[in-house]
């Protein structure tokens, strides 16, 4: 039950929707209440990244953003990425590479990586680390998540710039 109900309208995974909300409701709470449960509560303070979704193509912490700040924007969640029959390329690399342990951080990681792939044109290690620095993981040590992402980015760089090698140093 919502006190002081108001409405907010935004595009969610390509669909225009209007939701009942309250001025002090955070986007994470709205999303989970409306069935988009891939975004998770890890801290509620904008420090762990488990709640990461895209707003107008940028990765944001849905636990910090007020739902009403999303008015008129384009929101994308993990539910828009891949299916059981056709996981996305990065999802498949994560699965194949043994990079999914408890999985709690993974949807957030995928959203940040999606923002990276859709915004940048080159993917040197420093840029990649900057895009991924807001998603904490305690299980994997990041190694296999990094190498899965690197495989996807190297292929992508190869596709965009045929004839040049992609960077494949895991870290420096």
């Amino acid at each position: 039950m919502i006190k002081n109900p108001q409405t907010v309208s935004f595009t969610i995974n390509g669909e225009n929707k209007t939701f009942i909300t309250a001025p002090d409701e955070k986007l994470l709470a709205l999303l989970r209440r409306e069935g988009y449960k891939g975004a998770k509560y890890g801290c509620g303070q904008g420090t762990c990244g488990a709640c990461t979704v895209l707003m107008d193509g940028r990765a944001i912490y849905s636990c910090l953003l007020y739902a009403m700040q999303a008015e008129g924007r384009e929101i994308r969640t993990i539910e828009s990425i891949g299916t059981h029959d056709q996981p996305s390329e990065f999802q498949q690399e994560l699965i194949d590479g043994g990079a999914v342990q408890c999985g709690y951080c993974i949807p957030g990681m995928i959203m940040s990586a999606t923002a990276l792939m859709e915004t940048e044109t080159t993917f040197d290690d420093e840029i990649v680390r900057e895009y991924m620095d807001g998603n904490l993981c305690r299980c994997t040590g990041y190694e296999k998540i990094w190498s899965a992402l690197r495989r996807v980015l190297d292929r992508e760089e190869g596709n965009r710039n045929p004839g040049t090698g992609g960077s494949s140093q895991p870290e420096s």
Partner: protein
Amino acid sequence: MKLCEFLRPASLPAARDNLRELGTKGMALAGGTALHFMQDHTPVTAVDLTRLGLSYIRPEGDFYRIGATTPLADIQRYRAPRWALHEICRRISTHQIRNISTIGGNICRVFPWADLPVVLLAMNARMVVYSGKEEEFSADDYFATQPAKRFLDGNLLSAVKVPSLKAHHGFGSVKAVRTMASFSMVTIAAVLELDGPAIKSARVAAGSAIPFPKRLPEVEATLAGREARTEVFQEAAAKAGAAAPWRGREGMSPEYSRHLAEISILDALERAATFARERAE
């Protein structure tokens, strides 16, 4: 702060009118990431500033003009000649925060750990405040006290003007942290103007391990007119102890903060000098 109402004014004057009308019951909202640090339950009406066309970066004469609601991520990505603000922005918090947090949000209510005030002081930036009309304030003036007081009667920050780095000017900064996303232990920013081998002018500012960001006049005075070399920088950095009231951070002592500030000043000056020497034009 507990949001009870949400207003979306269509223009800067309309936003100011809303805030003036609401008084203490109103709150300017840009990214909103700082609200996490204001945990009381005071009911307020949010006045959304993000749809007023205040997100931009453009060259304007001898300055770069940055709109008040420009996200840090945009500043981080911006590249231009005689521009150096990206370096500190890529070291603030995390990617998701930088996408939402704005330059205005960082400097309208200054928290002790804020990095941008330190950099803007060193760069001698100018803040543009809208109070019905636009007024400019130097960084020295703007950061002399908690800027939040300036905005109590509905005034709004409209833009920040950062001087483009002239020839022979170099910028250097150091942000000492435990991990990349942490709040700073010490932030130092320096702009040096060189005249041949000599320091013609120096602006050195510090933040984080002190209650409020400030310039370090004792350090600057030691540099003025001297040769830009390590021994001079060390002598200037040694004045850091007297220059500010250092506080312990993260379980470490005030003495360590002072020491860290000294080393950071030295490193920042070396970087600024190197930068300045490379820029003859």
